[in-house]
């Protein structure tokens, strides 16, 4: 296993956030994806939607200034931005199923070359944690994934086929790992940007699925 430096989580999330377009409604999953909100292009107006019915929230609240009634999907206290609106859970998921969410960013255990991904259940444990992930994965206009390229044990997560139960089939469009940025097309994983110092071959060595180098592949872009 290479000892070369990999990408930081914040860089991975920054890169995905660079894809957000003006006026997009963005839903960030619990955990790593929340880092996407740390970098927002000031020229873009992004509307953050949280599955618990908060439409248009702002950064995390400063300590001591929390509104205890205002939390995001991760239960963190966030701030109100002018223009925010609150709806109940059924209306919030009506918005999600209705296709209003331009992108949802989630973590995952595995992503397959056909766009399947898995993030809710490990068969060795009984039960699973779905939350709103299945609704979002099935109905958002785009699913972006942020995850480490391999498991802690070094096993690949970019697979030919998911081993774990999927969250949604053929859903993932864009994937940032600590080794690069990947698009998923009908040709499978396309390596668009590679972590500095990494080659296609080195990344392929840590990947089960076959990677295709994009014709315009370049070094990973940082904010």
């Amino acid at each position, binding site marked *: 296993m290479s000892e070369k430096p990999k990408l930081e989580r914040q860089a991975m999330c920054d890169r995905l956030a660079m894809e957000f377009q003006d006026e997009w409604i963005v839903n960030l999953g619990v955990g790593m994806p929340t880092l996407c909100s740390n970098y927002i292009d000031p020229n873009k107006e992004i509307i953050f939607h949280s599955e618990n019915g908060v439409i248009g929230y702002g950064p995390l609240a400063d300590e001591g200034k929390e509104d205890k*009634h205002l939390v995001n999907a991760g239960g963190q206290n966030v701030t109100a931005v002018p223009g925010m609106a609150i709806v109940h*859970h*059924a209306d919030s998921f009506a918005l999600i199923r209705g296709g209003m969410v331009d992108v949802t960013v989630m973590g995952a255990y595995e992503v397959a070359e056909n766009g399947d991904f898995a993030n809710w259940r490990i068969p060795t444990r009984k*039960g699973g*944690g779905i939350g709103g*992930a299945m609704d979002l994965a099935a109905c958002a206009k785009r699913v972006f994934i942020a995850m480490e390229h391999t498991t802690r044990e070094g096993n690949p997560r970019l697979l030919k086929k998911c081993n774990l139960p999927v969250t949604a089939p053929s859903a993932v469009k864009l994937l940032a790992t600590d080794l690069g940025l990947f698009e998923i097309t009908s040709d499978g994983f396309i390596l668009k940007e590679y972590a500095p110092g990494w080659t296609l071959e080195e990344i392929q060595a840590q990947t089960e699925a076959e990677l295709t180098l994009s014709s315009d592949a370049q070094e990973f872009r940082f904010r």
Partner: protein
Amino acid sequence: MKSKIYDSFDHAVSDIPDGSTVMSPGFGQVGVPRNLLAALNRQGAKQLTAVSNNAGTLDDKIDIGTLIEAGQVKKMICAFTAPTHPSQVTPFVRMYNNDEIDAELVPQGTLAERMRAASAGIGGFYTPTSVGTELAEGKEHREINGRMHVLEYPLPGDFALIRAWRADTFGNLQFRMAQRNFNPIMATAAAVTIVEIEDKIVEVGELDPDHIHVPGVYVNRLVKIPSDGIFE
């Protein structure tokens, strides 16, 4: 009209029988009816079917996990039958692993929509959520407008335990911010709706009719959280 205001949480939940389906909202610590859940825990009703977003947390706050730990819950219907982190071994997880409690795992949006269907007199609905996953197995599928859907059925409750910000004496309710979450859906999906109020219960006419989140016709009992009640 009989007053809807009850003098205590214990009084308000005293008639919930064994075997009831009890809905309790809350998302990320907000809008959880902790006082009513504590009262139902004291009351001791058993063999409950509980409907909530999750099956309790690890902190020491009272939530549906408190009733699970006390053996009051036979079945949990929720969007998380495993916590986000494997390290969080809640009472539910322990009992679920030991087959001491039953559970039905439902995607969060489908959970909300099934309750909404129950309140809205809808016999069933088709949703694209969960298609192609393990959770859709055995469910009726139908392609509509080129998209595959699964058929889901209503989820009604016997009792809803609700946490609201403000009420009037008729039971019209208002919520603050993300406290709203599942509250209005559960309040309308259950036969009997019992509400704990954070801020105050005002006279009818004091709430703007344009800004009521749950009409009082859906609300049966109100209890103001007293100064020694559980606020967070």
